[in-house]
């Protein structure tokens, strides 16, 4: 019984220390930002519902910069030339409706800087009036595939700015498999690709003021809550940052997070599988140890 009392004292002081250096200290160090569910309450919903048929016509204004592969429209320029022209490669819009919030798209088309909460954008403002923008947004929604892969969501919303080197993702696409020349070890294809990535990064850094960080293990570096609230509104956590509010919907974000978690914390499924087995083993071990202890100490007092 005395042992249990002592254990109580030890556990108490341990937990107080833990509480102080972890939850408490972090609550003091980091501003807490409430998550609002990707509702974008500051943006106005269009007065009338958008008409996809009208949007389909109006989208012609957009394809001078954007491709829409699912509709057979190729991007007018390759990524590096596009970044030279606009600072960043305009994303292919096939999946826009599957990842972004419809109200956000409508607002973004009217004013990318206002919706994105940034000072400048490679995308021109005033491409359509409020109603025209709502039509285009409805059209993008209507062509969006029902189900997209987590990586596709990431590629559309974040992939033009952020690399993920642990998944071989670069801002201009997946690193191709290349073969070095056996005799000399020279891999020209790889060097050519690296040069393109390098050129793109230089343009991107000029556009944004800095190179956006690689997101390979951002889930471990920032944690779930920070990421969610940061993507919802980057200005809340990094005031004055050049990263735009991207305007993802709830479902879109879930996909993006799933991708980032799979790359950044790949052992999670394994942990969940192995953990219980190991714990069970030690519970069994403890039981046997207890029996041994009791048998050794039974006639001592």
């Amino acid at each position, binding site marked *: 019984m005395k042992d249990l009392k002592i254990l109580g004292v030890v556990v108490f002081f341990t937990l*107080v220390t833990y509480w102080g250096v972890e939850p408490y200290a972090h609550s*003091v160090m980091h501003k807490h930002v409430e998550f609002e569910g990707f509702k974008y309450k500051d943006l106005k919903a269009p007065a009338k519902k958008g008409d996809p048929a009208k949007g389909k016509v109006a989208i012609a204004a957009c394809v001078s910069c954007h491709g829409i592969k699912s509709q057979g429209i190729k991007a007018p320029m390759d990524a590096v030339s596009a970044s030279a022209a606009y600072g960043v490669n305009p994303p292919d819009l096939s999946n826009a409706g599957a990842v972004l919030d419809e109200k956000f798209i409508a607002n973004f088309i009217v004013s990318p800087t206002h919706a994105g909460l940034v000072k400048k954008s490679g995308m021109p403002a005033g491409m359509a009036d409020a109603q025209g923008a709502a039509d285009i947004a409805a059209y993008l929604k209507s062509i969006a595939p029902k189900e997209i892969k987590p990586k596709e969501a990431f590629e559309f919303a974040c992939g033009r700015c952020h690399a993920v080197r642990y998944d071989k993702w670069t801002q201009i696409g997946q690193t191709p498999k290349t073969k070095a020349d056996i005799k000399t070890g020279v891999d020209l294809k790889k060097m050519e690709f690296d040069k393109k990535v390098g050129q793109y990064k230089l343009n991107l850094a000029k556009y944004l003021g800095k190179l956006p*960080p690689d997101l390979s*293990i951002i889930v*471990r570096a920032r944690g779930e809550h920070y990421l969610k609230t940061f993507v919802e509104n980057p200005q809340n956590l990094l005031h004055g940052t050049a990263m735009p509010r991207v305007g993802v919907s709830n479902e879109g974000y879930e996909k993006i997070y799933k991708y980032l978690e799979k790359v950044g914390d790949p052992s999670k499924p394994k942990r969940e599988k*192995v953990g219980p087995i190991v714990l069970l083993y*030690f519970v069994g071990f403890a039981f046997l140890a207890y029996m*041994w202890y009791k048998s050794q100490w039974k*006639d001592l007092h």
Partner: protein
Amino acid sequence: MAHFDPNAKPFSHKWLDERLAVDTLQKVLSTEYWIPKNINFLWAMGMILAATFGILLLSGIFLLMYYIPDTKLAFDSVNHTIMGEVGYGWLWRHMHGVAASVVFLIIYIHMLTGIYYGSYKRGRELIWISGMLLFVSFSAEAFSGYMLPWGQMSYWAGMVITNLFSLGSLNLNGLVEWIRGDYVPGQAFLGRFFMLHVLLMPLIIMALIVLHFGTLRIPHVNNQDGEEIDFEEEAKKWKAGNRKESKVIPFNPVFLSKDVFVMSIYFIIYFYLVFYHFEFAMDPVNFDPADPLKTPPHIYPEWYFLWSYEILRPFSKNAGLIAFGFAQVIFFFLPFLDRSANVAPANRRGLFKYWFWILVVDMIVLTIMGKVPPMGIYTTIGTVAAWTFILLWAVLPFITKMEKPVRGSK
């Protein structure tokens, strides 16, 4: 003259005993190494520390197979190769990281147990001093290990801590550069901390563990009442079969059975942390790669260094360093600053009782204040706590000198 029986079969018991004295060894180290019966689970902390060191060594060996001590590759070799590509690499890393953090919790419990029961006096001074040497070595081991992933916190904590060696106004920048092998932490820095972490410090620690165990053998461990036990007399009773009357038990198997049971409970908690709650041991900031151009908004050491770090912070540069140096070494002198002859639980020792509990609370307050940013009320609390720590040690000789003798046993 040693006697070697020519007919003894090689590697038979007799053959080994003649050459290695295995029987005597076994008696001295295990079956006739006497432990007082009157002890609680806190006396298992030493074995738990030994076991945790074993875990660190084993998991460290596995990590070492894939770790690359190169400033350009280190981060990815840990966070990509080990965490993602090597089968169960994540398990070894999480075991290593959690064990490195938990080992300090157990060390602090072990130290405070020693202080509480007065186990650093009456022949046990060297146990205490060798223990403190272990504490310092573990600190160096932990700090050098923290550099290896070459993340933001590795880099900046390395920068801040090595800066301390300029010794304030002495401005010994040459010394700092000598330690770093460069003006700022870089390849030379990583290389030498790698060497310290995987070779020199583990060697020193292993030697010190042997020394620590050696210092325990003659005075024996203390007990819950600080009672002075005649071990030979009590051992005789035990050997005569008076298991109830004897105040001692053999280490093996009787004490060991309790050690193993306590250890099994510890393993359950430890592996729970490894699988479900490892974040506390692996700072998120260190998952950003080292960036010499970007100072993190908050730089703090791991939790187990926070109390001494906080003693440094509230003072001006030079005074802070002196206070910090004081905090680092003062525990070594405990056996000589405690002027009372009493070996008894603190709660029976007059003013020392309050001294002990104030010390515990003060160190926890220092730890928490060491992590939160130094502003407003936190600076005040930190300053008060730092002064309290210093004053506690200043008054210790006086309050213990005044202490009345208490009987060791109830």
